[in-house]
């Protein structure tokens, strides 16, 4: 078995163990070990990205590459069958792009953390744990394993914000923790429901003695699925599973279970499947974050130290979007098509509301935090359109926003390092004293507002094209929704250009009270080291979109076809079973 995915997850953990064993006063070695750990992860990610075959068929349910599957937990539940959790990893086009992003941002984050002075050992320990769990999220194909990594992200993040953060860090840390925990509890309910409803056909066949353990064949799977639907399997033989691909196949659902398409079960006049979709969606929407559950994000960003902000915006938010693509839509395609206007509407609301908020902010970091909310709205819009372009665009947006938001937060970090302040009104004409810095700010701002030539442009273009063609191709979104979303582009131009004008152009001036402690000087080598690669990447993926689309395209197309086709089919069944 190829262990590249396992090594991707556990390389940072290994580095974390080394850091743990180092004596506390050895700060520099701790940093070096962390850097080596992150670098190793990046190299593995690049190798994986290159080796990944982007043209092989994939649609979320099948077509995973580099699969690793091991039994982890399994015990008998008596008359209720078996409980089974697998250590199940695999990548498709969607995850491989996120893995690459995590690798890149992980290294940038370590470089940016070089200036941490307080409790260095603890900091890097938590940082590396965070990298492990994020990577785990992107690679897990077993819901239980995914949930484990998903929950485990909270803890390092809580401490990273709460110990190394700004003045109001404790409030922000707790708010972050509670918000995301509530979200993950929603996810937990649905996870339990799915596990109670879904079986692993192959393992069930082994349990029944149909074929020998370890033998796999498509016919046996089909036979078990048929037997399951005819209710001729002894319940004690059913092997319940958390496997995400198994959950995407309606034939794997136990006929009497609440989440079966034909169960007819309802709650508050909605099919239970729809409720389950809404709960899962809410859980991941908090992470994305979508308006109106976004309020933790500005607080967390403002208080978090720069590298943690970078990681939060660039990678952690993507877990939300990734969860929607990997789990929510393919498992509940019926509800996904049914609620597409809701999802798309929340996306557009996030775009506009986030942008309007950004326009009103005086704190540069808050401005960027709200711009994140606005940009992640495009991910929801693209997904809801369910067109090939839209889904491609959503994934492209996640990747591109990862690169660009990392750059944006680094840029804010630079001015905060110099002046210990980042209020827009306290600075004017910075371009005169910090020309190189201003160049990167301009690059980051323009990349983010979607200037052609940068990756953000491709992403927004794809999403909008998808949104516009959705009424004709998939019948998902009303056209006016996409038209409103375009306003978001205008607003983005407005808040970025306005901030640029206020802070960087004109005559040089900074607020008098800041002058004493502020040391305004241009970029250092370390800062170049972080900003140059990110700027290059933003340009590279803006000019050669096929670098990413070649890997993502097939999976995105497969995803949208699977969801559309199964969605309409299952929606019909669900609604008909309701009437009965």
């Amino acid at each position, binding site marked *: 078995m190829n262990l590249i995915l396992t090594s991707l997850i556990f390389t940072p953990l290994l580095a974390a163990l080394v850091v743990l064993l180092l004596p506390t006063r050895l700060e520099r070695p701790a940093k070096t070990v962390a850097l080596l750990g992150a670098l190793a992860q990046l190299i593995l990610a690049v190798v994986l990205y290159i080796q990944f075959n982007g043209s092989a068929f994939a649609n979320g349910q099948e077509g995973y590459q580099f699969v690793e599957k091991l039994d*982890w*937990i*399994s*015990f*008998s*539940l*008596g*008359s*209720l069958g078996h409980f089974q959790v697998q250590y199940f990893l695999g990548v498709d086009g969607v995850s491989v792009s996120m893995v690459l992003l995590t690798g890149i941002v992980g290294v940038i984050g370590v470089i940016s953390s070089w200036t941490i002075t307080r*409790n260095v050992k*603890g900091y890097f320990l938590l940082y590396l744990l965070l990298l492990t769990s994020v990577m785990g999220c992107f690679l897990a194909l077993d819901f239980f394993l995914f*949930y*484990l990594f998903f*929950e*485990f992200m*909270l*803890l390092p993040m*809580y*401490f990273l914000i*709460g*110990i190394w953060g700004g003045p109001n*860090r*404790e409030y922000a*840390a*707790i708010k972050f*923790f*509670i918000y995301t*925990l*509530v979200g993950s*509890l929603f996810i*937990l*309910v649905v996870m*339990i*429901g799915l*596990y*109670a*409803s879904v079986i692993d056909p192959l393992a069930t066949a082994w349990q029944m003695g149909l074929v020998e353990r370890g033998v796999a064949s498509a016919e046996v799977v089909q036979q078990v699925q048929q037997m399951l639907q005819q209710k001729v399997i002894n319940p004690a033989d059913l092997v319940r599973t958390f496997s995400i691909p198994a959950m995407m196949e309606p034939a794997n659902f136990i006929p*009497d*279970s*609440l989440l079966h398409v034909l169960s007819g*079960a309802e*709650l508050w006049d909605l099919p239970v499947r729809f409720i389950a979709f809404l709960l899962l969606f809410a859980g991941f929407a908090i992470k994305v974050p979508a308006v109106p559950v976004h309020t933790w994000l500005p607080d967390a960003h403002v208080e978090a130290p720069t590298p943690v902000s970078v990681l939060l915006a660039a990678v952690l938010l993507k877990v939300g979007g990734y969860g929607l693509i990997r789990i929510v839509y393919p498992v509940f395609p019926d509800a996904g098509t049914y609620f597409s206007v809701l999802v798309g509407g929340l996306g557009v609301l996030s775009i506009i509301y986030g942008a309007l908020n950004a326009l009103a902010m005086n704190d540069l970091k808050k401005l960027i935090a709200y711009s994140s909310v606005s940009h992640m709205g495009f991910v929801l819009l693209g997904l809801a359109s369910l067109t090939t372009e839209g889904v491609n665009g959503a994934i492209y947006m996640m990747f591109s926003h990862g690169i660009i938001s990392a750059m944006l937060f680094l840029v804010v970090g630079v001015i905060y390092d110099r002046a210990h302040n980042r209020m827009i009104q306290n600075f004017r004409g910075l371009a005169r004293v910090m020309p190189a810095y201003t160049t990167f700010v301009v690059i980051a701002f323009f990349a983010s507002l979607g200037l052609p030539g940068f990756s953000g442009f491709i992403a927004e273009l794809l999403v909008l094209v998808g949104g516009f063609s959705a009424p004709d191709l998939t019948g998902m979104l009303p056209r006016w929704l996409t038209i409103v979303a375009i306003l978001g582009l205008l607003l983005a131009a407005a808040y970025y250009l306005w901030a640029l004008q206020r802070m960087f152009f004109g005559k040089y001036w900074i607020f008098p009270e800041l002058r004493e402690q502020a040391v305004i000087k241009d970029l250092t080598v370390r800062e170049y080291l972080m900003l140059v690669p990110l700027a290059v990447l933003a340009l590279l993926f803006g000019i050669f979109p096929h670098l990413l689309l070649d890997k993502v395209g097939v999976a995105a197309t497969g995803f949208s076809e699977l969801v559309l086709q199964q969605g309409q089919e299952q929606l019909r069944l669900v609604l008909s079973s309701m009437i009965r």
Partner: protein
Amino acid sequence: MNEQVAYLSQTIEAIVAGAGNLLPELLLATFFLLLVTLDLFRSPLIKSLLPWLALTGLFAALLIQVLGGYTFQQGFFLDLLLSDGIARYTGILFCAAGIFTLLLSLLNRSLEKLRYGHGEYYGLILVLVLGLHLMAKSVNLLMVFVAIEVVSIASYILTLTFKTEERAVEAGLKYILYGALSAGVMLYGMSFFYGLTGSLNYAVEGFGAALLQADTLLVTVAAVLVFAGFFFKIAAAPFHFWVADVYQGAPLPVVALFSTGPKIAGIVVILRFVGTFADPLFFADVQFFLGIAAIATLAIGNFTALWQKTPRRLLAFSSVSHAGFLLVGLLAFGADYTQSILFYLTVLLCMNFGIFLFLQISEEAFGVAKLDGFAGLGRAYPFIGVMAVLYLLSLTGLPPLAGFMGKLLIFSNVWEAYSLSGNNLLLVLLATGILLTAVALFYYIKIPYNLFFKRNFREENLVISLSNKLLLVLFALPLLVFFFKPDLLLNWIEQLLAQIN
């Protein structure tokens, strides 16, 4: 006359034939008598040996129950006790709880300073463990009552270990008053059942059949009265009022024991008793009442914990909320939940002893009395801080710790039961249980928050003894192991359950 003789000889025969079933209990009783006798000697050497003697007794009882094979007779013992897999497994838990209590006591410095009553203290712990064994084995209402009283009386005296302290006296008094009240109510309810069924043994078939014939309202009233007594022992609402004061006043090792031992035993008693009412057609009222009690326990435990200023009171209400979770688990009729409940109880044992040990260390070494007393402790002593975080996360029910696994199993049972019966009560239970986990995080996180986020104002360099550290690790290991390999424990439990039944 002849009849009486014949009956007497029959009874004696039954006792002799079944005595083997009671081997662990007999062992504990013997060691208790030994301890009390030896306590009469004034030699300091003998006094210092007393805790080790108690430990030996508990270890012996633990060992024979782990090894098994001592039962000579299947079925009931005199219509009173049942030695089945549940009793054997929980017996192991009780002995473990007793051993943990003794270990904590040995590390407790205020107990050392106690001038008299050492022998009594260790002896009573043995009696308490003995009572717990009997509770878990009882299938007879009267026997349940006697067993609960054995545990209660031992608990009252243990609460009063520090007789000279005002807090302890207050706690003891409240405990006794509540205890006496609920015992009376319970006994009253039991008399109803005897009247309705003509039997005190509720594990026989006739008992349930007779209840089906009886007036539903009467059965409901009787059940409510009896459950009052059980709820007192597991600290479920509305019989939880004693908890906070007792936790505040009793020595910490004893508090740790209270939060686990009687809870486990009480849950087993309820587990055996509630099965009688599993038929929703006849006993919907009983179920409804139990469901309301479970929700109330969860809500009161979690929300009241939010306002607590001292760690002891916070953990008291946390223990109330765990009682609520267990009640939720017990209501998942239709799902085979014994295994999951026993798993949860095992995890609870480790978590609670761990967190109380942490509390004992911080109280004794650092004089922490309030939550803000923890400020900066974790920064100064990362090892202790990290261990505390581990226990608290497990109590909250977050991965990767066994507390999560326990909750997951209970919730999936409830889901299963809901999809079988479509009873909306179960859905409400599920939703309450899951949402209150977020509330639980809110108060548990206060401790790590103080440990790590607050500034350090302490400069003294205290050394935490190695035995304390080892014990902290000992309690934490199962939490990690049973998250990553819960099947190890679950399969063992399954084996035990299948073996003797």
